């Protein structure tokens, strides 16, 4: 049995806790959270051992692995202490707020031969795995362009204030939503060499963005765009979709289905014909030991546990690949500061290429808030 503790009992933590507790090879030895109320309810009704102090838990409770689902801003510190004690780590996404931290933690884990994984569950969605297999088989020829999208109804009114609404703690549409299509594009196309035209816009949130748009540039000339909006109430729940154009066809995939158009005469993978092919989740998805909200959540936990059992430090969604996603996010943040790259009138002030002075930023914020009060700001730059 693999001894696991869960840290952070928010939406994802609770869901992971249920899956781990139901896993036949896992012994759930502790849960840790800062809310004594949530802990006491769990202790009373499920009998699980609860811990209020993370450092003390690492010291006192013998563990093989820890699952960290706390706000992103706390990840680097908590992951580091677990690795230093020789504990395998599953960490929720995004991994950390600084790529340098992510890379350093990846190398610490590697030196110690520890199993690491980050919760980019879309890589365990069967339809996206089919896309990866098709690309690896060269079914699209050369990929020329891709579009990664994510939409959903998280912030649909001007209110709400948790860590998810504060960027400094790892909240906002970029960290919470856009990280998913970014990670999928990294998986499909590799690491981008640059980004441009990034727009981070507020719709309802006061302290962070609700929309993310950008262009990503890859070595060899491929490009991708991301279009993400978590204030779109026309979607019932989060929907992530990837479209890829290649010299030999096109793929459109979401978690339900993988639609593939292949040109006549291009080499075709087994079971695929020229023209449109559709593979549904009903035929692609492998059964899981316990189902909660989607097979991909179970599958990623299984992958982590099996890797610990088999002492395989390499695997899907390790810290190294999550560090690449963190790096892309950092590029988007820097790029968004620049505003429009080309402007209509040359007499206008040139695009800001360096971070503006503290004083200038303050003045802009005051102007922006004045516009918002006057009802002129329909969601300008954050």
């Amino acid at each position, binding site marked *: 049995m693999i001894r696991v503790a869960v840290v952070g*009992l*928010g*939406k994802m933590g*609770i*869901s992971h*806790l*249920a*899956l781990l*507790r*139901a896993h036949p090879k896992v012994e759930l030895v502790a849960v840790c959270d800062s*809310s004594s*109320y*949530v802990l*006491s*309810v*769990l202790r*009373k*009704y*499920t*009998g*699980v051992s609860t811990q209020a102090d993370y450092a003390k838990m690492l010291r006192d409770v013998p563990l093989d692995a820890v699952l960290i689902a706390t706000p992103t801003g706390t990840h680097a510190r908590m992951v580091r202490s677990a690795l230093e004690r020789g504990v395998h780590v599953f960490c929720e996404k995004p991994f950390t707020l600084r790529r340098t931290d992510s890379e350093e933690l990846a190398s610490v884990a590697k030196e110690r031969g520890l199993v690491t994984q980050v919760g980019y569950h879309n890589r365990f969605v069967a339809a996206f795995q089919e896309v990866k297999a098709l690309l690896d088989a060269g079914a699209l020829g050369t990929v020329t362009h891709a579009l990664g999208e994510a939409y959903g*109804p*998280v*912030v649909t009114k001007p*209110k*709400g204030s*948790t860590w*998810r*609404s504060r960027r400094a703690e790892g909240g906002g549409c970029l960290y*919470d939503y856009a990280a998913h299509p970014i990670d999928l594009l990294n998986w499909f196309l590799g690491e981008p060499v640059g980004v441009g035209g990034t727009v981070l816009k507020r719709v309802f949130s006061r302290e962070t963005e609700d929309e993310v748009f950008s262009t990503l540039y890859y070595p060899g000339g491929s490009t991708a765009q991301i279009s993400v909006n978590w204030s779109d109430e026309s979607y*019932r*729940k989060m*929907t992530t*979709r990837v479209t890829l154009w290649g010299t030999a066809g096109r793929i459109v995939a*979401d978690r*339900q*289905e993988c639609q593939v158009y292949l040109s006549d005469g291009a080499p075709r993978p087994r079971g695929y014909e020229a023209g449109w092919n559709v593979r*549904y*989740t*009903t*035929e692609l998805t492998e*059964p*899981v*030991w*316990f*189902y*909660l*909200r989607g*097979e991909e959540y179970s599958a990623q936990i299984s992958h982590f546990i099996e890797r610990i059992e088999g002492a395989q430090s390499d695997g899907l969604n390790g810290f190294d690949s999550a560090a690449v996603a963190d790096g892309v996010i950092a590029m988007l943040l820097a790029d968004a500061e620049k505003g429009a790259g080309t402007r209509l009138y040359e007499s206008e002030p040139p695009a800001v290429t360096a971070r503006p002075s503290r004083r200038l930023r303050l003045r802009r914020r005051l102007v922006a808030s004045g516009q918002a009060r006057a009802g002129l700001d329909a969601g300008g730059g954050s």
Partner: protein
Amino acid sequence: MDRLLLGDNQFFGINHMSEEKARAQAMRFRALPAVLEVLDAAYDEGIRTFMCTTHERMAAVCDHVRAHPDRYAGFAFYPGMPYAHKYANAVTEDGMLGAIKRFLPDGGLLSAAVRGGSSVARKDIEGLTTLLIDAEMKIFDGLRTPVIFLQNVVVDLLLGLGFTDAFRIFADHVRTRYDAEPGFITMNLPVLVNALQDIGLENPIVCSNINKIGFRMCGGLEAYETVLRTGGVRAVAMSVFASGAIQPEEAVEWVCNQPNIEAIVFGASSRRNIRHTCELVSEHWGLSPSLVPAAAAAG
């Protein structure tokens, strides 16, 4: 329990195979008349039970049925609670405790709010749970709700956590307050049936995917077949067509040949599909009288 129940996924644009189909359905059923048209067709084809989530959109359907008791004589609702995305989005926005506070009833129900407040203070989940159940049930006031289901996201979360006392709290409250049978929707039938037996819930109503290809039948087809053969559970089959992956004739023939299935819940958007399903189920279960009214069969 009726043998064939109409479900409501189609009205919300829920389709497990295709986002495009889901969106087309959401557009088609945007306004109430389109929903009522399907409901009326189902009633006229002999369906007497509507199994629906406690989504706020269903309030208008409830109002309509309440206002026309003669048109819907003998009609029953099987509410499925809660509409979970409402709570999940609230947790993202307000955090765990903030979300709980947001959904406690207020205004006019002072005693209920006080009960809720003391529940949190007493760290007793029971009062809170019953309050949330009552809030979800409000739209069904005055309507027949002989079975009340707990939705699979909640059932399977509690099951995974080992928080099985909550099933007992739900069952007790539904029985005493609503004179209804508790039902449980799950994607993990074999595990759930064991857990319900362990807490002494005899012969529970459990609704789960039961289809020929084993789609979302967690634990595997064989384990499901064993549970059904063994009995001790009132099984309701959903996702019989696996979102369209199985042809209707093949799907119904297979499911009707499984032992101890008490009812089938199905989604349909047209009178033609409803009638076709009624005909298939009547034929393969050898229902007498047939679900298809004589006049309809002749027409």
